[in-house]
């Protein structure tokens, strides 16, 4: 079926196909070929007398501002995605996850006690703080390193960031409600059932897992 038309072109040996046809041919070749194609190669593949260079000029114009463009790659030509549409080639899946209990508690301690060292966080939480938890908060840019504490070992301190304040809609960390206010708001009466209390000395991971459910049960309406 396709041969018929092909033969037509080949029959008119010394008469090049009309420019519109040549443009179609260049278009098809550039589309289907895996590599960029040189003008010479185009001319070799197209019927005798074709002028691929001229066809390319037309084709290039035709694709101006389109979703794909005819671009020059070295001394060859190719069809490529328009640069501004590159984002379509990325399929971004955003998963929203609740911050783990360990992370929330660590974050809360940093917010209320900043600047605070890791050892102090551990003392307050009563469990060791995993590296992953701190890294996660750093990566989220909700906490950052503060000044080193002028005590033996010169431990680093953590403080909350502007991003943190923005996220939680706070002017400053001082705006966080104090213990009295928390109690007034009824927040201190919420105690996790004994089974979900993180065990002293156990790893953070276990504590997180054990409490995730119990926590949401308690606080969700």
């Amino acid at each position, binding site marked *: 079926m396709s041969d018929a038309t092909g033969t037509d072109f080949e029959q008119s040996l010394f008469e090049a196909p009309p420019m519109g046809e040549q443009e179609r041919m260049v278009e098809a070749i550039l589309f289907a070929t895996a590599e960029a194609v040189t003008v010479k190669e185009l001319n070799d593949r197209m019927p005798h007398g074709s002028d691929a260079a001229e066809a390319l000029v037309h084709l290039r114009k035709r694709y101006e501002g389109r979703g794909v463009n005819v671009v020059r790659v070295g001394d060859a030509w190719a069809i490529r995605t328009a640069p501004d549409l590159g984002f379509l080639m990325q399929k*971004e*899946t955003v998963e*929203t996850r609740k911050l783990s209990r360990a992370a929330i508690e660590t*974050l809360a*301690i940093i917010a209320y006690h900043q600047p605070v060292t890791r050892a102090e966080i551990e003392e307050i939480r009563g469990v060791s703080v995993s590296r992953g938890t701190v890294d996660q908060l750093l990566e989220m840019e909700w906490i950052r390193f503060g000044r080193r504490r002028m005590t033996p070992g010169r431990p680093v301190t953590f403080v909350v960031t502007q991003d943190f304040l923005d996220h939680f809609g706070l002017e400053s960390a001082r705006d966080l409600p104090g*213990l009295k206010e928390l109690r007034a708001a009824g927040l201190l009466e919420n105690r996790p059932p004994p089974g979900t*209390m993180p065990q002293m000395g156990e790893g953070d991971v276990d504590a997180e897992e054990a409490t995730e459910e119990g926590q949401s049960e308690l606080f969700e309406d």
Partner: protein
Amino acid sequence: MTESTSDGFDTTVADRLAAEALIVDVDGFEGPLDLLLSLSRTQKVDLRKVSVLELARQYLAFVDQAKALRIELAADYLVMAAWLAFLKSRLLLPPDPEEEGPSGEDLAAHLAFQLERLQAMRDVAARLMARDQLGRDFFARGVTQQVERVRKIDYTATLLDLMQGYARIRTRDEFRPFVMDRDAVFTMEQALERMRGLIGFAGTWTDISTYMPDGWDVDPVRWRSATASTFAASLELAKEGKVELRQSDTFAPIELRRRDGR
């Protein structure tokens, strides 16, 4: 089945030649239906007008010849031969009103339908394969771009989460001593109560450690608490004049005996 050549249907020379050609090529057939379809072409009529009786005769002649030439035919060819012989007899004999089952005409019609359907499938298969095909006549994109899958995890927390988290920690601190009371502390009152019940049986010197509550010797924290309270309770009981205490040497076991009398 052997009567097929002597039952009045003389095969023509052309038929025989065709049948021989078929036999030589028997491996090329895709089963008896395919063979029947080939035979039906020798009738040079529209498949709808094919004479099934004639076809049955041709097929049986073919099978006979194959036997004569000692060509092994697959079982399904022979099953078809038997069925066609049966069909032929049905078509030739006047219908028996007693006989149940479909008539010879019904069976013949179905066979004709099967042949027509097989031929139709062959025709459309050929038309399908004659279509322009991807990768031969038309082409897909040569340069493909992988769609990158970026998995982004957006962690969220609300101010309430934060405050509740903090409240949880502070609350835990406030109540910890209370929890420990229950858990790992043996009070002097508890020790006194326990010992008062037991000293009645302590007529001889016994180590005060035997008055320790059961099960408190596993956890060192509880052990310490129980030891302290038991010791304090012993002193209290001695002060009350209920017991006597003695220790033979520094760090030696402290022993206790009921003090009789008043």
